[in-house]
């Protein structure tokens, strides 16, 4: 086919459905020239999502969503299905890796003030993705029908029984019975398969909203002219590919050398509704929120605090009214940012330990500090912090 004829077909299609213009937009999409490696984690989270969907598709071909056969079918995948062990370990480790990438991505946004105007909706869609991810991961963890699956599902679904009056009916509706059982497993499997595609739709909205005003950057100063930007391709495609490489090396280390390190051994025992394991712990990525749940000595209060811990992130663009975005020009904010990160890690540590003795006291202090950070420290900093002078433009910050 001659070049001209080919262009003819391209033009014919593009006139009717502008997919080629869209690809051209992606190729020419301009990005701040000073993005550091922290900006690679969005793409890394994206590739992690693709890996989860692909490995999940192949697992679903062998998995049986029935309370009597689910546990055995997972063992069958591990022992008999060709490369079943690899696909399952990729999926299980991949969930953790996806959360690592997303947590770094969120942490990047918090540090550089990426949630601020005009990117509030980018932030919102990101939080929706985060919420959907948590729901998907939770339901996925139930599917192997091990002890942690069963009791994790019991505890989390019971959170809804804290709702006054209708709580009990809602929980029975979620279960399709009087306890977590076969109907619950079936619907969790269906939803676990559905939600990732809703996440994909949210990702599209997240990126579309991002492309309206473009990426934030380490200076937090908006793009002023073409001198501040470089095309996404090839500069950031190459940079992101390097990020992928490092990510895949860490990923492969866990898959091949420590596939069960991030999981819990109790989940290799089949679900038993008569015996609760002595220490129920969720997967590591839920631990900070689990610690907040347990810190409040009231059922409804604990549930409200746990959901509130994420809900408060939606209010962040307004709680932090400082015009300066990047922590690089906010010396006090920077200190409190790292204190907050430490607090979240501390909550994670507390969440992984039994609710007794000092763990309770530390958990309560850390929970209190978590909310203090958003409701007191951030608004106070926005009002009183003396920020450093920002550069006039990205270009002048780089002195070139």
């Amino acid at each position, binding site marked *: 086919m001659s070049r001209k004829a080919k262009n003819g077909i391209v033009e014919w299609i593009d006139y009717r459905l502008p997919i080629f213009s869209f690809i051209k937009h992606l190729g020419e999409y301009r990005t701040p020239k000073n993005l550091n490696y922290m900006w690679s984690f969005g793409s890394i989270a994206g590739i992690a999502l693709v890996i989860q969907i692909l490995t999940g598709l192949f697992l679903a071909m062998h998995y049986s969503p029935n309370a009597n056969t689910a546990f055995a079918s997972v063992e069958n995948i591990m022992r008999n299905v060709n490369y079943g062990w690899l696909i399952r370990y990729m999926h299980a480790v991949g969930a953790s890796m996806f959360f690592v990438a997303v947590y770094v991505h969120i942490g990047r946004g918090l540090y550089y003030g990426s949630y601020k105007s005009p990117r509030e909706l980018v932030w919102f869609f990101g939080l929706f993705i985060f919420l959907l991810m948590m729901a998907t991961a939770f339901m996925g963890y139930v599917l192997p029908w091990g002890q942690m699956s069963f*009791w994790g599902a*019991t*505890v*989390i*679904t*019971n*959170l809804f*029984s804290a709702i006054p009056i209708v709580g009990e009916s809602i929980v*029975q*509706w*979620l*279960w*399709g*019975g*009087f*306890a*977590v*059982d076969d*109907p619950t497993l079936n*619907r969790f499997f269906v939803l676990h398969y559905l939600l990732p595609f809703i996440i994909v739709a949210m990702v599209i909205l997240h990126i579309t909203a991002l492309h309206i005003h473009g990426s934030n950057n380490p200076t937090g100063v908006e793009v002023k002219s073409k001198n501040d930007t470089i095309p996404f391709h090839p500069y950031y495609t190459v940079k992101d590919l390097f990020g992928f490489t490092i990510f895949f090396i860490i990923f492969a280390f866990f898959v091949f050398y420590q596939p069960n390190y991030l999981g819990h051994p109790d989940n290799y025992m089949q679900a038993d*509704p*008569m*015996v*609760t*394991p*002595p*220490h*129920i712990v969720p997967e590591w990525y839920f631990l900070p929120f689990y610690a907040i749940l*347990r810190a*409040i*000595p*009231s*059922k*409804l209060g*604990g549930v409200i605090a746990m959901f509130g811990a994420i809900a408060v992130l939606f209010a962040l663009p307004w709680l932090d009214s400082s015009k300066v975005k990047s922590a690089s020009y906010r010396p006090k904010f920077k200190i409190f940012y790292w204190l907050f990160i430490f607090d979240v890690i501390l909550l994670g540590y507390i969440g992984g330990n*039994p*609710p*007794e003795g000092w763990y*309770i006291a530390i958990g309560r202090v850390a929970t209190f500090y978590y909310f203090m950070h958003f409701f007191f420290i951030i608004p106070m900093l926005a009002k009183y912090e003396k920020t450093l002078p920002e550069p006039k433009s990205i270009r002048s910050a780089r002195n070139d």
Partner: protein
Amino acid sequence: MNKTNKEAPKNKSRRDFIVLTATALAAVGGGAALWPFVDSMNPSADVLALSSVEVDLKPILVGQTVKVLWRGKPVFIRHRTPKDIEEAQNVDWQSLPDPQPDAERVKPGRSEWLVMIGVCTHLGCIPIGDSGDYHGWFCPCHGSHYDTSGRIRKGPAPLNLIVPAYQFINDTKIKIG
């Protein structure tokens, strides 16, 4: 011209009425169409079918607790010791988080038998027997302590362990459900 000006608002309000009623009806219809799908997730008839379990109490010794499965949940049947009963009765029950006297939680004249759904009222774990600060049950998940009557004494659980509907068929047999 004059005529149309007069008619316009009249027509408009009539049209608004039609639009509003049609929208309202569509919303009701939409809601009604949604309901079967929502309700399909509720417990189905076979799950709801009243299941009952008969338990022979003869082999349960004093101080022993037996777990039986009923509707997918464990039921604790405890043959209480005189000390258990004494502890359960000698409590200022009105000051408890979920106030209930021990007498309300057992059948009259059979205070040695305590029958409860063995599911923590906090988030649904199964409490461990003969433990906790009140010598009753202790939930390992989030640290709720229950006394020898299964009443919540300390910790995040809001309610006492639930006593299911049951009856004595004879002196040594009960029917749960």
